[in-house]
């Protein structure tokens, strides 16, 4: 119990058993996909004071009432599947777990949209849509655990984004509980773009209306390239084929996939392409165009037998971490023109011992996920050093006109690089107007000041540390 008695009794009275602050519960809510080395506790108070399991929207209103009165940070949490620290407390506070929020699902076939509550997991939503002949337009590779609300709060992207765009392109309207306790609906572009990627710092998104499409079958092809440079040429040439998704692996990742499965893929830069096809002739035309494009652009077409059922692996990247006790990953978005240079940079930086996977999220941008794994548990110090190494290489993405996938906690301060200065100013002004007490997910988006040395911001400290240690 770390909350002051008055605040604690307010939460207990308001939520009964849906408020818990035992040590174990607090520890369980102190991490996301990345387990933090204990050394980070010097800069981040990631163990919350308590957790409220939200059952209905009014619960969020009540939480904000108490939090505003008592000046307690409120940290929203959904799937907890990101590694950017967006759902971690920075200076303690109360985590609100939205997974208990009543599930809503309302499809509008005329408008090709669906309205769902934010904790809806993608795989459940996809199944519900498929049952009615529809499908999500784009979705993250964490389909079985990622939530709609969490995806939008991170301005997520993913499979299908090449054709249909990322979360901001999909979401048409949101319902939000503002830190003031007001429940508001937003559908205008300006507000939607402020909330996308806001990491729950502007309020708690409770419901989203997003575009859906008819459930069209996909057809797959694959090819390989000898170098990262050829890969970029190849990726650009595929843009004219109205592709649904392009999925890329570096040779190291292909080798790992081969070693953990029955595949015998050539250990080069691998590209797996999927396209929506409505009928046989369309598929034949796609195959012909694909083959011609690849041949003309330094690629080698891969026989279909090599990639049998490989599409099933698109949600199973982490299956390659089998028998691994420690892993760290980074995810960055990079303009396609610069991606070969950045890929080479990462590979050289990690002595070619790094796994890289990529997804084209627009004709101009590639999202890169890269990770290292260790068979055994490594010490806190070593983990911290590795973390700094990742931070250092991620920081360099800016030089290539790219940016981290999202801000979260660890890349707070990079908002300007992702959205530009003008939007940063709009964000700050809006944040000030709706959250004057700065209780809504502090430490995210805008880099916070260090608790042990308040003159320095977290971003500066991490930059310095990554230069020294990384």
């Amino acid at each position, binding site marked *: 119990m770390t909350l002051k008695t008055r605040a604690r009794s307010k939460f207990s009275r308001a939520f009964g058993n849906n408020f818990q602050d*035992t040590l*174990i519960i607090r520890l*369980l809510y102190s*991490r996301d996909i990345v387990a933090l080395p204990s050394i980070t506790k010097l800069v981040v108070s990631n163990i919350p004071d308590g957790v409220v399991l939200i059952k209905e929207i009014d619960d969020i209103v009540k939480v904000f009432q108490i939090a505003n009165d008592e000046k307690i940070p409120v940290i929203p949490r959904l799937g*907890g599947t990101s590694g950017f620290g967006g759902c971690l407390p920075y200076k303690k506070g109360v985590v609100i*777990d939205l997974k208990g929020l009543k599930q809503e699902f309302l499809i509008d076939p005329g408008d090709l949209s669906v309205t769902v509550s934010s904790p809806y997991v993608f795989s459940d939503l996809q199944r519900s849509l498929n049952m009615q002949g529809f499908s999500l337009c784009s979705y993250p590779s*964490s389909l079985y*655990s990622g939530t709609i609300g969490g995806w939008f709060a991170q301005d997520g992207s993913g499979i299908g984004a090449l054709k249909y765009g990322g979360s901001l392109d999909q979401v048409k309207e949101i319902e939000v509980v503002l830190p003031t306790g007001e429940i508001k609906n937003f559908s205008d572009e300006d507000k939607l773009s402020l909330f996308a990627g806001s990491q729950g710092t502007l309020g708690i998104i409770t419901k989203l209306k997003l575009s859906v499409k008819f459930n069209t079958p996909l057809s797959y092809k694959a090819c390989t390239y000898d170098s990262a440079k050829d890969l970029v040429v190849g990726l650009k040439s595929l843009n004219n084929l109205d592709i649904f998704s392009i999925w890329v692996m570096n040779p190291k990742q292909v080798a790992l996939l081969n070693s953990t499965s029955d595949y015998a893929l050539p250990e080069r830069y691998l590209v797996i392409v999927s396209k929506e096809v409505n009928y046989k002739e369309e598929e034949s035309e796609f195959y012909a165009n694909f083959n011609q494009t690849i041949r003309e652009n330094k690629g080698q077409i891969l026989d279909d037998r090599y990639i049998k059922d490989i599409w099933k692996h698109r949600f199973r990247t982490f299956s390659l*971490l089998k028998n691994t006790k420690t892993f760290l990953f980074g995810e960055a978005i990079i303009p396609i023109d610069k991606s070969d240079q950045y890929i080479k940079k990462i590979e050289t930086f990690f002595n070619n011992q790094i796994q890289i996977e990529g997804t084209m999220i627009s004709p101009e941008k590639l999202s890169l996920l890269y990770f290292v794994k260790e068979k055994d548990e490594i010490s806190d110090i070593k983990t911290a050093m590795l973390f700094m190494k990742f931070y250092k290489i991620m920081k360099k993405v800016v030089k290539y006109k790219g940016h981290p996938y999202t801000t979260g906690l660890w890349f707070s301060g990079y908002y300007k690089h992702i959205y530009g200065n003008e939007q940063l100013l709009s964000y700050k002004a809006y944040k000030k107007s709706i959250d004057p007490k700065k209780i809504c997910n502090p430490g995210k988006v805008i880099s916070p000041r260090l608790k042990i040395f308040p003159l320095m911001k977290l971003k500066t400290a991490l930059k310095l540390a990554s230069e020294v240690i990384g």
Partner: protein
Amino acid sequence: MNSAHLLKVDILEIAQKCVYCGYCSVCPTFKELNWESNHPRGILEQVKMYFNEKYTKDVSKSLFDAIFSCTMCKACENICIVDLPLLQVWEQIRQEAFRRGRWSSDLLSIYDKVKATHNIFGLPHNDRLDWAELCGINLSRRIKRKAPVAFFIGCQASYSGKMAGIAESMVKILRKARVNFTVLGDEEWCCGAPIFLGGGYTVGTSLAKHNYEELKKLGVKKIVSTCAGCYRSFKIVYPKILGDDWDIEVVHASELIDELVDKKKIKLLNTIDEKITYKDPCELVRHCGLSEAPRSIIKKFPNVRYEELPSNREEALCCGGGGLLKINNPKLVSEVNTKLVSEIEYTEADIVVSCCPLCVDTIQQGVKEKKLGIKVLDLVELVKMSMEVKK
């Protein structure tokens, strides 16, 4: 013979290998309870804390509460992208809870009943075949008779009046097909399924040994079961605890019936007019990988109208009745079951069939609560309906 301790895995080692991807959020009870402490990845986090002296005392209650809110449906292990043997971990935590005296009194009562009377109902051995009398079946020439095939009736079908139709149907099918079979009668002991799921391998092993010896005495080569729990015990657990001595072929009723139909030993004559859907029992499909035999039979009914549940085969939803949850938290069973019943409703089926008495019982409750006019039957009951000449 191998001893039960060979089933043990290093649960801390496994917990450390969790990559925290969260895919195991498919867990049916987590979907209802929503707390991270009930998330399979959260349970593994608690395992790590349990082995850290700093937290052992604090975490034990939360860990044991969470583990007994599990239906052991294996959905978590099925989806785990790093292939962790989660079911074994859950069983071992339950065992640890037993050692620490943290089983609930209801659970202990079941344990004591099975230990003392060798059935989950605590009823006398002599009552095991009362169902036959109730159904007007004379089994006297089958009891403890030497035969190559044994029909293992199971506690549910033997003692629970509402499940008697399952045993009756299976006996009629076996007779019709002229299968030379025997039943163990009052020497049939609980297969041990509830005990194994509770982590009680010591008592479970004694049950397994008894059943094995009785079957061997009768020269049994093949054992057939209508119960998914019994089938799992014979198929998966017995070979592990009895080792190479366990040389009896194990078939589920659906596998045997499918074979008998193919060999024309029984004929499915009558049309089932109602639309049918099939619920895969977790213990058959995810534990044992059996999903096609029941479907094959259903598709052989003349002019059958059949529709799959939206979640089927390995992705089948759990009814909530497994893993001793009915004893530990009946309310949660009902909550979990609601999702399954909604899927059944979606198919607009008139009959939902399963191959597990526990599923049948749980779905029946759910259908009743929702006041739906859907019949819930075991597959063998449906086969009997189609097989019998209408008078």
